[in-house]
């Protein structure tokens, strides 16, 4: 019985982190769908969002939700600036230069955060205290409900945007057939900028809601970002629910293997999964990908 209890507790913990991976994965998918670019700096949006919230909270003394709003806004602006200054200047689109540019941006964000906020780990207070609720015997921190709520809201909002507005439909059409979109009179460049804004905002939000459960550090972005990517590739990028499902699977897998085997290899689980999927199932488990 205690065994089962332990397993349940671990699974619930994994679902919490999994949602975060899912949110970050959606950010990846939005940019990839519209622009064809995998933004290796995606995870840095989450890192910056969390650190800036902390800054607004502690230094500016803002209340928590104002701090979050400010952080998300600033990161969104940074995302747009990055797209306008770097990505849109890729005249001859080459995947190699896109990799280097997003990698350089990731290094810059990481280094900049280190200079501005130091190398220490920070922690962000939970939005509504550090209490927990017991569900079938597993202690679920209140913050997980925030994550759940925000994830649900985000998915609903994205569904509305991509299915009910002409603008969202236009973004989908760029993913589907870029040339066709241009012939229809869609400004594809603008759509790419919007996709970066959306994914930056989403990434920041994911980093902020996740921060109270872990800690915030200048170099946490890269790994977190790649895990989001693994979530996206596990679930398939076609729908905006796919990355969330992939994220939940990854979160549970990680949590279970850390709980039963060793936490040393926790990070490499995600990456081993990534290598396996890319080489064995380049189309993802559920969705259509064209990795080859």
């Amino acid at each position, binding site marked *: 019985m205690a065994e089962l209890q332990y397993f349940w507790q671990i699974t619930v913990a994994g679902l919490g982190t999994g949602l975060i991976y899912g949110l970050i994965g959606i950010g990846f998918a939005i940019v990839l769908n519209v622009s064809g670019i995998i933004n290796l700096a995606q995870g840095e949006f989450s890192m910056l969002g969390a650190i800036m919230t902390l800054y607004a909270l502690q230094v500016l003394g803002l209340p928590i939700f104002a701090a979050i709003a400010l952080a998300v806004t600033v990161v969104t602006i940074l995302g747009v600036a990055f797209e306008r200054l770097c990505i849109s200047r890729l005249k001859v689109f080459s995947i190699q*230069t896109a990799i*280097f540019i997003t990698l350089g941006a990731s290094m*810059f964000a990481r280094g900049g955060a280190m200079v501005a906020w130091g190398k220490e780990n920070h922690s962000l207070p939970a939005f509504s205290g550090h209490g927990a609720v017991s569900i079938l015997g597993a202690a679920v921190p209140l913050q997980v409900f925030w994550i759940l709520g925000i994830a649900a809201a985000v998915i609903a909002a994205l569904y509305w945007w991509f299915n009910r507005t002409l603008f969202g439909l236009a973004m989908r059409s760029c993913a589907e057939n870029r040339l066709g979109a241009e012939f229809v009179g869609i400004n594809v460049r603008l759509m790419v900028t919007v996709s970066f804004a959306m994914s930056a905002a989403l990434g920041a939000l994911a980093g902020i809601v996740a921060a109270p459960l872990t800690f915030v550090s200048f170099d946490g972005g890269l790994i977190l970002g790649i895990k989001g990517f693994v979530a996206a590739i596990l679930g398939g990028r076609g729908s905006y629910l796919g990355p969330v499902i992939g994220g939940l699977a990854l979160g549970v897998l990680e949590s279970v293997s850390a709980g039963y085997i*060793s936490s040393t290899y926790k990070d490499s689980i995600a990456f081993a999964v990534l290598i396996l999927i890319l080489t064995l199932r380049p189309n993802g488990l559920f969705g259509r990908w064209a990795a080859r």
Partner: protein
Amino acid sequence: MQRWEFLAFVTIVGLLAAAIAIGGNPYVLSVLNFIGIFSVAVMGIVLILGYAGQVVLGHAAFMGIGAYTTAIMTLKFGWPAPLGVVSAIVVVAVVAYLAGKPILRLKGFYLALATMALAVVVDSVLVGWSEMTEGPSGMTGIGPFSVGPLRIVGEWPNFLMIYIIVAGALALTLNISRSMVGIGLRVLHRDEELATSLGVNVSVMKTAAFVLSATFAGIAGAIYTHYSRFISPDIFSLHASFDMLLVAMLGGVWTPYGAIIGAALLKFLPEALGAFRDYRIAAYGIIFIAITFYLPNGIAGWIRDVAEMLRRKKPGIPALVMGEILADTAAAGAIGTNARPASLEVAELSKSFIGLRAVADVGFSVPPNQITALIGPNGAGKSTTVNLISGLFMPDQGRITLDGVDLVGQSADAIARMGVARTFQNVRLLGDMTVLENVMAGYCARADLAVWRALARPRTARQQFRTAREEAMQIMEGLGIARYADQPARELPFGLQRVAEIARALITRPRLLLVDEPAAGLNDAETVALGALLKRLAASGITILLIEHNMRLVQAVADSIVVLHHGQLLAAGAPTSVLRNQEVIEAYLGGVPAHVGG
């Protein structure tokens, strides 16, 4: 590596050493040693990224595997250092082969991410397998490199050893770039499909380049271990991989010299930053973005461009008219290719794409030594047929035989090596390579492209390279484009680009030449000259299948015509009868719909 390069290398390193010995700071010597070690690892990146064009992001991991293998073998198992180093090389090569073979099928972002993931997994093993690796705190007490009584201890002996290895790595890397293997890598870097059509087995070659590149990193790691005698996982982390990539890009990833330049700069930069060391990572990020935009060929590329500008007194070669050039050389007569012309038989050939029957039950034959034209309106299935013959597509059913040998099921590169060459509708020359190099690329179909043999027998590899160059020059002479040999292909006038493509096909010694819409983009005079050239080729013993829309050209050169329409065979036979065939004319012009008007 050429003699003057070797002498220059020895002189510069010697002068540096002398300067340090006379009045310098011994600390600088240790910096030089680290530069040497890292430049060897970065030359690995030059091989896989600069030459083969594969964006691989986890090089430090292979350095780590090499470093830890020799450390574990010598420290935990008491092996002598040379055995430790050899085992490091073996382990790295095996890991790189096993991981590389599946991973290198990926492209672009996915390849980059998969190699990043590989690096993270390696890193976590180095941290986690603490019985062997001592975990995150790292391994200390590793012995120096020693063979019997000879112990390499202290900065000076290490300096000597490290720079001998740097010289060796430099020589190997340069030799590869100046061999047919190097040409093959450069082609697959820029256009994999083209490489395949020139007989390059892309997957084998990528894997070989990857294993070699990882081995360089592994060797660097092993030397590092015995030099610094302390290693820890964070030296070989993912971030270290990014730093190495930046070194390669900053110095110039296209040449091993770039590896040395980049390593030197990025090793001295933190020293120069002094109190601002904390800004290092952010600065690296900015540098990375800046060189991607403004200095894509790195500092070595900038030096090359400046040198080129100073040297360039040639006022540019007058762009002659293609027609005149070909007319001039026509007198030269046959272009010997020493190949036995083959006959091609196509029977019951079918290929469908999702919902579309592109080619349906098509059969025709191409007799040896003749020009057979394959014509038909847009969407008739001509391109599909060409791609089926050259092996880019796999037919759903049917037979394709070259002199009785079945081509179906053979890989495209194998078919190219059997003597089927082609030119492309949209000229596929590699614009940044010279015309000579482009033509030499065709020699890949006849060359020994085994990477390890190019390394082990540099003399043979060089000989092969020379032969390719001589043959290429001969063919270009015969076609009148030899004077453009050293110009970048993109500077050639369009008509001559077509000719250069034909030259590239000829050097493969084709027994069957597929010419895909050669007249597209040519004017009347050029088209006439092209026709004369095709006739000359056929006369000198090459079987030609000409895919063409320009009926004048077809009429002028074809010995027989095959017409496709809606993926099916419409007519075949002598030009005069086929072109008078009412069905053929209808297919091209369309009938008048009955009820349209007003």
